[in-house]
């Protein structure tokens, strides 16, 4: 369960988001809003990447008071991921496995789902945007987070990979993991059941739209 407690975010003097107390039950949530409404800012706040006033809790773990347990429960994939060109995909996979205390063998199904085995050991500098995007998605699924945040996960993915991603999300849901997804592209609800649509309007989060 994701809870917000008097969350406020501003850039300088300009307020961006203000979310009074609220909670989201486990599920798949599709966060929507126009460009510049603060979707990515909210996702980064939930991922613990941006400072803000107030607190966010996940499964009872406070980001402010218990940051390590909180971060253990949350995982994040950026909309336009960037990694140092001199690293290999394998470097990052083994690093995530060590930090999230997961066996590298557990990652093999993820790599094969996205057909990444042939190039995961090569330098990221030689990869296309789509390959980097797939790596960011694989990294987000490593470990056993209870919430995976996916910022524009469909961008630059080919159709096969999109279907694989839907499949992984459905599997994750079956195991109790929640997903917070933003996408300007239409999500095929036949393949990916969405439990709740969230909308950022007037600098706050509206959660009343149930699918």
């Amino acid at each position, binding site marked *: 369960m994701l809870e917000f407690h008097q969350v406020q975010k501003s850039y300088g003097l300009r307020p961006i988001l203000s979310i009074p107390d609220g909670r989201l039950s486990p599920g798949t949530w599709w966060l929507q809003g126009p460009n510049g409404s603060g979707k990515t800012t909210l996702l980064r706040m939930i991922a613990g*990447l941006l400072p803000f006033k*107030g607190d966010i809790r996940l499964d009872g773990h406070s*980001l402010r008071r218990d940051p390590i347990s909180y971060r253990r429960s949350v995982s994040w994939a950026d909309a336009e991921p*960037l990694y*140092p060109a001199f690293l290999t995909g394998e470097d990052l996979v083994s690093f995530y496995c*060590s*930090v999230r205390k997961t066996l590298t063998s557990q990652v093999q199904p993820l790599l094969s789902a996205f057909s990444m085995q042939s190039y995961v050991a090569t330098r990221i500098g030689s990869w296309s945007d789509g390959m980097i995007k797939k790596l960011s998605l694989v990294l987000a699924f490593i470990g056993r987070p209870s919430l995976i945040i996916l910022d524009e996960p469909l961008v630059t993915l080919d159709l096969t990979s999109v279907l694989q991603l839907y499949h992984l999300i459905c599997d994750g849901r079956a195991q109790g993991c929640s997903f917070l997804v933003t996408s300007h592209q239409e999500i095929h609800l036949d393949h990916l059941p969405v439990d709740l649509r969230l909308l950022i309007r007037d600098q706050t989060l509206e959660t009343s739209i149930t699918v």
Partner: protein
Amino acid sequence: MRHPRHLLWKTLVRQYYRQNAGFFLFFFLIFFGVVGPSQQLAYHYALIRGILEAPSLLALVLFLWLLYAAKCSRWVMGLLHSTDHGFLHTLPLLGRTKTFRLMLMIQAALYLPIILYATAVLIIAFSSSAWTPAIILVTFITAICLGSSALYQYDLFHPGILTEFVFIRLAGKRSVRKKYTPYWSFLLRGFLAEHTALLAGIKIFGCGILYLMLSMQTPDDYDIRMPFLFFSMALFGHGALIYQLRRMEVDQLIFYRSLPVSMIGRIMQYAILYLLVLLPEMIILGWLTPDHIRFRDAAGFVLAGYSILLLLNGCLFIAALERSEWLKLTGILFGILYFGVLSDHLIFISGVFLVAAGSLFYRGYSQREG
């Protein structure tokens, strides 16, 4: 319509000098800041005579110039392969000769600091009839400029082939699956992969100057202030590296912040990194202790170096500083450190720096929690 030269100048040359301002300031300080204005000519004349007369010194100088050439090539090739500079691949439309001429001009502009110094060396070589080193120098500079230009031209006309070559070579080397990759190793590889020439220059200068200055120290004629001044110049050069590393972290390693790592675990990554970065200087100091430097002073040097690197790193977690602000800050911190050696409080000030580094890092990271 503007000539393509204008565009190349703006994108490849002007940006290069702007981004490497810290690098050039460091080497300018080394070459022109160590002796007074009245002694500049005599100092450089003696240095050039040494280059012309001692083959080992000439070899060292050529090696350093080769490292600088590698830095220039890396810059140009990096831009040629970056997506936001894809427009440069229209240059082959100008034809082979014209493209090569443009690339030669770019290489000469990037290599200008070396060419200028080499010209001074050549003038003295000709006036003193040192023909062999003069021929070696001319051949070297010409080969670097023509070779680099040919490399850029080849890459423009055959995009991807050189990258593919490197890619296959590296892929072939990697067969062992690693079990654990610590975060500090990403940072260290960032230094090694992205700033090879700067790191090598700083290390060669730092270790070389430490060895030369300390090996002259004897129990009867012992004064640690001048060796520390030179050592602190080498440390000052590390400031440019730390700044670049932090930029890389913010741009490309931001995911680390979202991972479940304790504060101690995070601090340890930087503690290990800078211990490894300072290891060559520590080995030199250990080697010369106690014959040429007293144990207490050696400990002071190590602690001062280590604490200043961690403090500079910690400062960048508090605020995103502009390059000019960063240079001012590093200058002030080194001034404080030098005051420490003059007043014989080096270890105390280093201890204060170490505590400040830890608290700044903690504060900077804690700000991110909310």
